[in-house]
């Protein structure tokens, strides 16, 4: 038996995940679709740009929804009975972790896109039915491939924080993760504004213009380093720490 990863076991676990969550997937999908439809109705009265609706509000709502669901993806670990059942399934920790990750990323993303598309189709159908002679707008082609990649490139790092929160925190995972992110960015901002900004200012005013330009470049570089760390390194590190945390998960906290 393959110790860490076996494709058959992985598929079986994934099927288990889908079957156990099929009802909640459908309910959440329907809720999201209804939410989009509601917004669309409100949109007609506030006369805001359709562009904002499709390129900001819908994706933002979908991302929020996906992150909220991601936070509860390890809900089995919240209940002592479910925890035992889950931890005793004869599959490796890696397989269990990957299944949850794939479920909380790809399944939820597909679900969100389906909800957006369903809402759009319903809106356009209603428009055609209620206003005879009006043709349907393009409904399935709101996002270009590049736009989708851009959204996902922001979504995956952010989702990694919430996935980590799901495995690390018990109860109120979403709020706790959100607090963690706010605190982390708060510390970075304070460090940036109290240490780096004055440094740039002092160098720039007291000495020469060249030094000032150099220091601005320096802080710019540092900002990109911070950005690289928070968007690439930290999410990957958190995914690894989350895996190790799941590996150490017990039925109760021992000493």
């Amino acid at each position, binding site marked *: 038996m393959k110790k860490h990863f076996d494709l058959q076991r992985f598929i*079986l676990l994934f099927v288990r995940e889908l*079957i156990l969550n099929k009802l909640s997937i459908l309910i959440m999908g329907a809720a999201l679709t209804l939410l989009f439809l509601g917004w669309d109705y409100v949109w007609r009265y506030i006369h805001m740009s359709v562009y904002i609706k499709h390129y900001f509000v819908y994706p933002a709502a979908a991302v929020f929804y996906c992150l909220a669901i991601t936070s509860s993806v390890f809900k089995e670990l919240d209940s002592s009975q479910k925890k*035992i*059942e889950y931890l005793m*399934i004869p599959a*490796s920790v890696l397989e269990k972790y990957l299944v949850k990750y794939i479920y909380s990323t790809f399944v939820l993303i597909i679900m969100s896109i389906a909800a957006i598309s369903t809402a759009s189709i319903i809106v356009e159908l209603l428009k055609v039915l209620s206003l005879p002679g009006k043709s349907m707008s393009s409904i399935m082609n709101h996002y270009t491939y590049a736009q989708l990649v851009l959204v996902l490139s922001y979504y995956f790092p952010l989702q990694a924080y919430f996935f980590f929160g799901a495995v690390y925190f018990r109860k109120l995972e979403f709020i706790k993760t959100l607090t963690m992110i706010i605190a982390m960015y708060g510390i970075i901002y304070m460090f940036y504004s109290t240490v780096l900004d004055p440094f740039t200012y002092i160098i720039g005013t007291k000495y020469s213009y060249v030094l000032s330009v150099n220091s601005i470049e320096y802080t710019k570089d540092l900002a990109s380093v911070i950005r690289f760390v928070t968007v690439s390194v930290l999410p990957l590190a958190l995914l690894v720490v989350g895996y190790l945390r799941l590996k150490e998960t017990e039925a*109760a906290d*021992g000493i």
Partner: protein
Amino acid sequence: MIEIKDVNFGYKKRGLLFDGLNLQLKPGNIYGLLGKNGAGKTTLLKIISGLLHISKGELLLDGAKIIERDPAILQDIYFLPENCYLPDMQMDEYFEIYSVFYNRFNKTKFDEYLVKFEIPFAVKLSSLSFGQKKKFAIAFALAAESRILLLDEPTNGLDIPSKSIFRKLLAESINEEKVFLLSTHQARDVKNLIDSIIILEAGGVIFNQSLADTGDKLSLCFLQKEPNANDILYCEKTLGGYAVFAEKEKYSNDENEIDIEMLFNAVLEQKEKFAAFFSKGVDNEKTL
């Protein structure tokens, strides 16, 4: 088969529970795990399942570390908690999803056990009563054919006929490769089923003997007069006399059936006497 060597374990809020625990579970046996509330019976089952991390010592299944929770080890250890969780799905769906994780799962036996327990087919698991859920879980656990079966209070919630069926199925299922460990407060429910008794107390095993050995060495007699305390191990006042545990050579009894509940009380009350008595037997065996 299962070796627990010098194990320390405790809970954060309650401190150390097991301090240098040693235990061996050999195949072909059904062990009864007894102890007062809070003695650590369920904790021990969780430790053996790899669900709790020990702070010191070793926990091995045929030489492999259980705590690593390898899929192969998890296939070999089936832990059925007192309040087992069954997801909200159809019975056959549960079978299809979970049985495939156990490569020795026996579908024919599973169906047979469900029939014996009179569990209705093709229903949602959430629609079953507590007792029916328990019987379904027991049937599944036995059909999984895991080598180590750990049952926590398995008879809780079972009606009287089901307890009898449970005993019968367990007795049929044990073989030379398997170990069953039953934690229970209902000593009478496992009468004529278990062949060894383990008693936990104050963070350790204070009694670990086969019932056959115990029966060979100990005698349970009912006397009308109170015996001399030096001649016996334990004495309990009963209706019309005294129930006495004594060395068989001193008090022989032809119908020597060990009452598990009484033995449990006796061992708890006379720990030192029982420990000395059984270690004397071991010393003699070593000398021979």
